């Protein structure tokens, strides 16, 4: 399935021409997890990447659902 991922913080820098308005389209297998998605985007866990869908922070083994936009951003401790 194809999903749209929006990348925030420093995470979009690896994708030249990335536009926030559009995000990035990724082809993932049905039942793919957060870990699978991050691996596909080549975002290592050491970067502190966080994935959110429908207002919830997902865990590594959570499944990405079809048709739901995914937000990926850096962990941050406060302002």
């Amino acid at each position, binding site marked *: 399935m194809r999903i749209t991922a929006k990348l925030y913080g420093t995470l979009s820098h690896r994708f030249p021409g990335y536009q926030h308005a559009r995000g990035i389209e990724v082809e993932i297998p049905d039942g793919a997890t957060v870990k699978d998605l991050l691996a596909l985007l080549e975002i290592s866990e050491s970067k502190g990447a966080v994935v959110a869908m429908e*207002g919830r922070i997902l865990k590594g083994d959570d499944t990405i659902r079809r048709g739901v936009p995914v937000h990926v951003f850096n962990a941050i401790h406060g302002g």
Partner: protein
Amino acid sequence: MKFIKANMSKKTIGVEDVPQEYAGLGGRGLTSIMINEEVPPKCDPLGPDNKLIIAPGLLSGTPLPNTSRISIGAKSPLTGTIKESNAGGTVSAALGRLGITALVIEGQAPEGELSTLRIDKTGNASLIPAQDYKGMRTYKFVEKMLEVYGKKTSVLCIGPAGEYRLTAASIQSSDMDGRPCRAAGRGGLGAVMGATGLKAVVVDQGGKSADAIVDPKAFKEAAKTLTKAVKEHPEPGHLMPTLGTAALVAPLNSMGAFPCYNARKGVMDGWEQISGEAMAELIQKRGGKTTHMGCAQCIIHCSNEFVDKEGKYVTGALEYETIWAMGGMTGIADLDAIARLDFLCDDIGVDTMSTGVAVAVAMDAGYKEFGDGAAAIEMVEEIATGTEFGKILGNGPAAIGRHFNHSRVPMVKGQGIAGYDPRAMLGNGVTFATSPMGADHTAGNVIGLCLQGKLDPLQAEGVVEISRNLQIAIAAFDCTGHCFMATVAAFDPEPGEAFRKVLGAKLGTHLGPEDFPGAMGVRVLKAEREFNRKAGFTNQDDRLPKFFYEEPLPPHNTVFAISDEELDSTFDF
């Protein structure tokens, strides 16, 4: 290790060695413990019995990077509680390099009299008449001070709001470029400074008489480990110099925890227009600076310079909390309007957060439409011109709520909340409710744990303990002058140990985790809680406004679900 005491009633300066009872204290620890000892808890915060204490951290003035946070404390006219507000800039390092442990401002000048407290590079202090600067806004004032004393000068000053003694008035701190864009914003300490008759503290940066480091070799070694950890950490090392704290706009909206339209919703319509990413893109396009060194000895550079369409400077250090307060709470999805509002608040000398919340309460009450940037700018301008409405606005959200007889005022103990809705991030609700400072995100922010997947933001179980531990840790770090952005790296075990070694080497003692942050944080919080008890605060004051318990917040449609009994167990020591 000395105190400089300025008595504003008598116009005298006294210099004394730090008394034994305050030895080993700095920053928030010193301001809070001194206030608890020396300020009558029931005094008028704007009367002659209050004291304004300005204390560099224990590590300020040492070679360790990121140690230029200045703590300013007093009894707050906004909350009626004890207050410590800390700010970046250059003054903390400047005072530290002079071996000054604290400036203590006491008494009150006769009505209408204004002075600056000047400290030269030998540490000599004097009170200088400042009548000519009466009513002057902060940017122009700092420019004048730099003309008189040279560019290597640090300034802490108030603007018109502080001179009017408005209870949301800030004390502005000059940055590396001599711009007063850093603020000790919370708690109305600018009003306390104005009430003493002090316009500014003006410090030469060339001091060479810092307190000795007891074990310089151990200090250097541990400082190297800590500095490396800060540089390599993904947050202070990479994210902060890219977007600064504005990087929070995306996660908070993605979690549905971004209080907007006066906390009626958790996701703002059009938030992508005011995100950190949008801001960086706009600044880059216009030729401004997306990264900037704002504070002395900073290696993170989380600051920025926002410019207009012509590339002209508008404001510096446009940060998450201001974007949230002036954009999210007011529904203004326009970075140019937000940047202008940030500049105005810094220039007039009012807290961007309390002022943004107050504007939002007025809008919620029907005074103006949400999203009307021009109206918000006019409202904030009225603070400086001193109209009746301007004075109400400058007294913060509670005053605006009373004026409009509007009960939806998101505040605790009179201080507006920060950009994390307690209904969608329960842990921060606990911190807002129980912090001795009134609603204050810096007292113990759970956002990092939520984003690391260690805490479900909607989870009630265990959050009291999490808030307690964070509040203890932050109270301890606030004693050191170490910037929170760098402290994030010290949350990991190895750099955390290096931090203890640095501090221990400075003080000549061995520190274990039970000493720091443990015992130091508890000691500070105990003093603050004791002062508040004596001032008349009880457990009943450690509550959120009613609407947070009753009005579900979209999109999660949850309310704040921590019982009073649980809140009352936060400080079980």
